[in-house]
C-alpha cells in the first residue's frame, strides 16, 4: 500500500472537520491551563488550509503537505501555527518528488516531523505538549511494517489521554505546575484529531 495525494487531501479535510466540530472543546481545555485560544486558532488555521487546498489538482503528497504547512504558519496566529506548520513542512520535505509514498518514506516523514516539532518548540517528551502524542505514535509507526490505521488511532488516543497525568513543564501550562495535572493538553488533543483523521483516511484507502 502507498499513500497518495488524494489520501493526503482526505486526511487534511477530515482533520479540519474534527477540529471545527471540537473548536469550543479545544478552547475550553486551553482555558483551563493555557491562554484559551487553541480552538479558535486551530479552527481558523485549518479552515484556511482547506480553502487553500480546495479545487487544486495535486500530483504529489508533498505539495499538499507543503501548502497545508505554509497556510498554518501564516494563519494560525498562536504557537500552534509554527509547530503544526513545521510538522507538515518536514513531512513534505521527506516525501518530496514521490507521486505515491511508500511506508518507509511515510514513516521517515513523521520522524522528521517529530524532530522538527521538538527543535522548533525546544520540547522533549514528558512535558505535557503535543510531543507526547506525536513521539509515541511515530515510535509505534516505526515498529510496524505497513500502514495500520488502528495502531495509529489507538496509540494517539491513549497517548493523548495520558497527558492528563503529566505535570506541565513547557508552555503556558508550566506556570501552573502541579495544578496542570488532571487536565488534558489541548495541543495533544488536536494532535489526536489529526492522527484519528489520518487513520480514517488510511482505512478508506485511495
Amino acid at each position, binding site marked *: 500500500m502507498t499513500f497518495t495525494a488524494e489520501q493526503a487531501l482526505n486526511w487534511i479535510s477530515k482533520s479540519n472537520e474534527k477540529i471545527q466540530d471540537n473548536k469550543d472543546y479545544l478552547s475550553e481545555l486551553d482555558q483551563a491551563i493555557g491562554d484559551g485560544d487553541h480552538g479558535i486558532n486551530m479552527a481558523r488555521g485549518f479552515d484556511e488550509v482547506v480553502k487553500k487546498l480546495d479545487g487544486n489538482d495535486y500530483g504529489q503528497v508533498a505539495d499538499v503537505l507543503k501548502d497545508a504547512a505554509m497556510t498554518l504558519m501564516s*494563519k494560525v496566529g498562536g504557537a500552534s501555527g*509554527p509547530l503544526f506548520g513545521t510538522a507538515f513542512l518536514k513531512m513534505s520535505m521527506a516525501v518530496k518528488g514521490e507521486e505515491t509514498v511508500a511506508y518507509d518514506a511515510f514513516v521517515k516523514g513523521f520522524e522528521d516531523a517529530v524532530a522538527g516539532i521538538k527543535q522548533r518548540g525546544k520540547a522533549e517528551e514528558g512535558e505535557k505538549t503535543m510531543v507526547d502524542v506525536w513521539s509515541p505514535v511515530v515510535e509505534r509507526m516505526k515498529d510496524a511494517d505497513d500502514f495500520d490505521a488502528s495502531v495509529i488511532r489507538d496509540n494517539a488516543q491513549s497517548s493523548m489521554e495520558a497527558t492528563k497525568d503529566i505535570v506541565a513543564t513547557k508552555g503556558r501550562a508550566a506556570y501552573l505546575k502541579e495544578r496542570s495535572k488532571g487536565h488534558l493538553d489541548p495541543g495533544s488533543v488536536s494532535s489526536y484529531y489529526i492522527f484519528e483523521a489520518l487513520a480514517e483516511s488510511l482505512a478508506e484507502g485511495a
Partner: protein
Amino acid sequence: MATVGIVIISHSEKVAGGVKDILEQAVGQVTVEAAGGTEDGEIGTSLEKIQGAIENVHSAQGTVVFYDLGSAKMNAEIAIEMLELDNVHLAEAPVLEGAYLAAVEASMGRSLDEIVSALEKEY
C-alpha cells in the same frame, strides 16, 4: 550608507506599530518595520508579515529582529530560515527597550555585530 534594519514583531499590531512610532520619533534616522498581529489584525503573529518586514528593512548592513512572546519567536525563526538571508539576528531582549537601544546604535552607523554585542551586554 544604509543602516542596520530593525523589525518589531508583536502579537499586537498596535504594540508593534507603537514601538515603531517611538523609535521613529525618538531616534529619527532609523529603518524600522513593524510586523504585529495576524493578517486579519487579530492577536497573534503572521509568518508572511514577518518575512515582508524583514525583506523591507534588510540591506547588506544586516537586520536585527525583536519579538514579544514564544510563538512570535517560532515564527521569526522560521521566517529567517526561509528567507535565507545573511546577517539577520533574532534578539533576546525586551522589545521596546532593546529596539530603542538598537535604533540609537544603528542611527550612529554601528554595525550589526556591534549592536548585537551592545544588546547582549545590556540584557
